[in-house]
């Protein structure tokens, strides 16, 4: 192994702005055929490290140190022109968002042919004389290799005509087209659905292995790393704080941060007040059917969105019936397009069903008067996915949290008092009120959003992917907070998520949705341990789980 030229050799790599060091003396080396994970949370410098290797840093940042790609001389500080022979040929990159990484106005085949031409491929380089269909012929093998169902027609397609997973496959085909020695993948599957993610990861591992290329895999998701990589580097505040084989680092972490990160991503150890997994059904907190009437009831709810005259309408929900009981935490799980968000919009009366009825506390939403609706809204609040987007950037935290109270005409002094109490309850200091959303971290913003949702003392809280935009370590804390507050205040929590693993740890019962229908409902334990529907089985199998047991 020692006499092989490493796919990439990084030593003393620093990235800095004029005043601050963002990446500090990072050293590592990846052997050909080796898969190395680079993990860390937002702001840890993991993406900057990858950009520095590719020479793609933004202009206001400077890199120093040395990076050698497949035995090349140091590439740090090269101009774009000097860097050109390496990019795409010796080292290439796959980005997070495949939609923006592909040119929307260029056929997929043309984009792939361009990459091949850049790499000096003889089949496409004698340009000018060759027709478009010939070019597309030349790229078909590449598209076949990444498992596109119909490569010939995919070559003729524009990016928007492909699904997210297919687009990422095209990106991988482009990245590997010129047989690079190093592939850098920056959160390549974060934007994809779970079942698609599993396929794309498997594909990437296989192709990289076949080519003997080095893989640098950047992600925040420890479970994904444990599935893909052999070795892992942990970054914190611009430094690599720990590195080693997956088994070593995850099995017996040395650095305190790694331990904290592992503990936070291992939801198994989290006690969210659910009936324990080690079978104690007798003391189940979960309300039994028939005990109390359901607080929320969907009866045969369907929703059709029409999309103008040219396109067929979309059936977002199809005859969905659900009962949710008071005091329970109910999860709705599904992938994009499954109708889970539509269900949530129906429940919060932001949208009306095409047919069927939604009842909340025995009140049919479609028949509710204005004042009944107002009372209902006081009783039912919402937490959104993106904590920054759900907080008005021009408002102070005090005003944001007080907003639901405004609609209730509560006097100002009482408002201020309630808001401060609520902020304390979610673990934020009272002086938070004068500040603006951008001054807080992601986890703190989500706490603010939770404070706003609970400030009217509602009995139902509806959460839309409340932790999917958060860093791993913060995620556990926010889940704990949600669990604690729902228990303390005897709330009914309805949570929508794409992540079965998260729902499993927070919710009593879960409904699995696919293509607008509910395919399975049951206790989370039963659905996870013994899924009945084939789709649930697939979802369960695809959900990344840490493959190395941590020593606690």
């Amino acid at each position, binding site marked *: 192994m020692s006499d092989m030229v490493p796919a990439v050799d990084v030593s003393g790599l620093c990235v800095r702005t004029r005043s601050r060091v963002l990446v500090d003396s990072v050293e590592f080396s990846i052997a050909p055929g080796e898969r190395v994970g680079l993990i860390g949370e937002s702001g840890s410098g993991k993406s*900057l490290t990858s950009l520095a290797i590719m020479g793609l840093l933004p202009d206001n940042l400077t890199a120093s140190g040395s990076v050698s790609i497949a035995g090349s001389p140091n590439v740090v500080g090269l101009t774009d022109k000097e860097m050109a022979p390496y990019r795409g040929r010796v080292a290439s990159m796959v980005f997070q968002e495949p939609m923006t990484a592909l040119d929307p106005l260029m056929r997929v085949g043309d984009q792939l042919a361009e990459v091949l031409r850049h790499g000096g491929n003889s089949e496409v380089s004698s340009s000018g004389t060759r027709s478009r269909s010939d070019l597309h012929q030349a790229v078909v093998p590449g598209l076949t290799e990444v498992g596109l169902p119909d490569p010939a027609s995919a070559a003729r397609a524009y990016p928007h005509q492909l699904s997210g997973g297919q687009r990422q496959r095209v990106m991988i085909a482009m990245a590997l087209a010129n047989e690079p020695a190093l592939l850098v993948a920056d959160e390549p599957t974060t934007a994809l659905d779970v079942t698609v993610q599993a396929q794309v990861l498997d594909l990437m591992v296989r192709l990289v292995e076949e080519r003997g290329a080095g893989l640098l895999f950047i992600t925040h998701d420890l479970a994904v790393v444990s599935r893909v990589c052999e070795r892992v580097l942990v970054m914190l505040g611009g430094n690599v704080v720990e590195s080693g084989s997956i088994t070593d680092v995850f099995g017996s972490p040395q650095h305190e941060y790694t331990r904290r990160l592992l503990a936070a991503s291992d939801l198994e150890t989290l006690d969210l007040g659910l009936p324990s997994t080690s079978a104690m059904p007798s003391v189940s907190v979960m309300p039994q059917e028939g005990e109390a009437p359901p607080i929320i009831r969907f009866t045969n709810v369907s929703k059709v969105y029409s999309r103008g005259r040219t396109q067929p309408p979309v059936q977002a929900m199809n005859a969905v019936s659900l009962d949710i009981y008071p005091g329970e935490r109910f999860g709705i799980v599904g992938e994009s397009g499954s109708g889970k968000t539509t269900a949530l919009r129906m429940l919060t009366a932001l949208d009306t069903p095409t047919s069927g009825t939604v009842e909340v506390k025995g009140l049919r939403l479609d028949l509710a008067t204005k004042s009944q609706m107002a009372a209902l809204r006081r009783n039912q609040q919402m937490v*959104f*996915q993106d904590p920054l987007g759900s907080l008005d950037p021009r408002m102070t935290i005090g005003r944001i949290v007080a907003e*639901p109270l405004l609609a209730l005409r509560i006097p100002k002094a009482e408002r201020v008092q309630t808001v401060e109490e609520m902020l304390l309850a979610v673990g934020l200091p009272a002086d938070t009120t004068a500040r603006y959303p*951008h*001054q807080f971290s992601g986890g703190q913003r989500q706490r603010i959003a939770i404070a706003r949702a609970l400030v009217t003392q509602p009995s139902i809280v509806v959460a839309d992917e409340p932790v999917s935009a958060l860093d791993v370590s913060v995620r556990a804390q926010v889940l704990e907070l949600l669990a604690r507050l729902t228990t303390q205040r005897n709330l009914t929590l309805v949570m929508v998520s794409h992540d079965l693993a998260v729902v499993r740890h927070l919710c009593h019962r879960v409904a699995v949705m696919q293509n607008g229908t509910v395919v399975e409902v049951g206790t989370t334990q039963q659905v996870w341990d013994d899924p009945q529907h084939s789709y649930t089985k697939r979802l369960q199998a695809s959900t990344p789980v840490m493959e190395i047991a941590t020593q606690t």
Partner: protein
Amino acid sequence: MSSTRPVSSLPSSAATAGPARFTPGVHGGLIVGIVLVALVILAAVVSLVWTPHDPYATNAAIRLAGPSSSHLLGTDPLGRDVLSQTMVGARITLYVGLVSVGIGLVVGVPAGIWAAMRGGWVSTVFMTGSDILLAFPGLLLAIVLGAAFGASTTTAMVALGIASIPAFARVARSGALRVLSQDYVLAARVANRSGWAIARDHVLPNIAGMVIVQASVSYALAVLAEAGLSFMGLGTAPPTPSWGRMLATGQQFLGSHDYLAVVPGVAIAVAVLGLNLLGDGLRDVMDPRLKQVGDE
């Protein structure tokens, strides 16, 4: 939002994420804008109580006298003091902008927000109508209204104001559409806030920056249009001094008495530049996120 802005992860005690950015640096453009606009306002206010000479007094004996100690900026072909006329002209300039921008703001912005919130075919019809109005040149409208109601500063400015409504409506509508798609508006709807409250508390503050820039551009255009209309004799009627008509007079004497055109020309440039800088500066300062100044 990549890793360029590290926030403290793992917030053990809450609220540790840097209050450092909060103190804004001195905004250079804003300061210059304030100074220039203040200069114009000062000239206008002072002219109400004092001018070096009577701006209307003609004196054939000193016609076209160049700058001197008694007439700092010289005199015009009728022997009137140019400095005094420029000071009084500042009043017209301010009035002109207030009327036309005021009409555009008061009508255009609510209309745009309404169209965005209302949606459907009504707003489509409304915006199409506004597009048609946009295609109609403001100066032409001013000429038509001038012919119908008699040429005066007010008619000209009402015409320009009406002509600027579509621009304000467009800006407000596109901004409002962006704001309305945000989760915080959804949150407000779930909190049962009325459409009016959402427009006032969320939409308006978040589009204010865009509207202010549009206002400063419109204001500058109005000043130029007034100058143009007066130049053609359709704006401010003599003998009231207006920078536009002073410029029109002055250009006849270019080559022999340059200062006659240069003085009002510089005055217009100062007012327009000042307003634009002021608008851009206000937009930046009003944004609590205050990234780097001058940063997009």
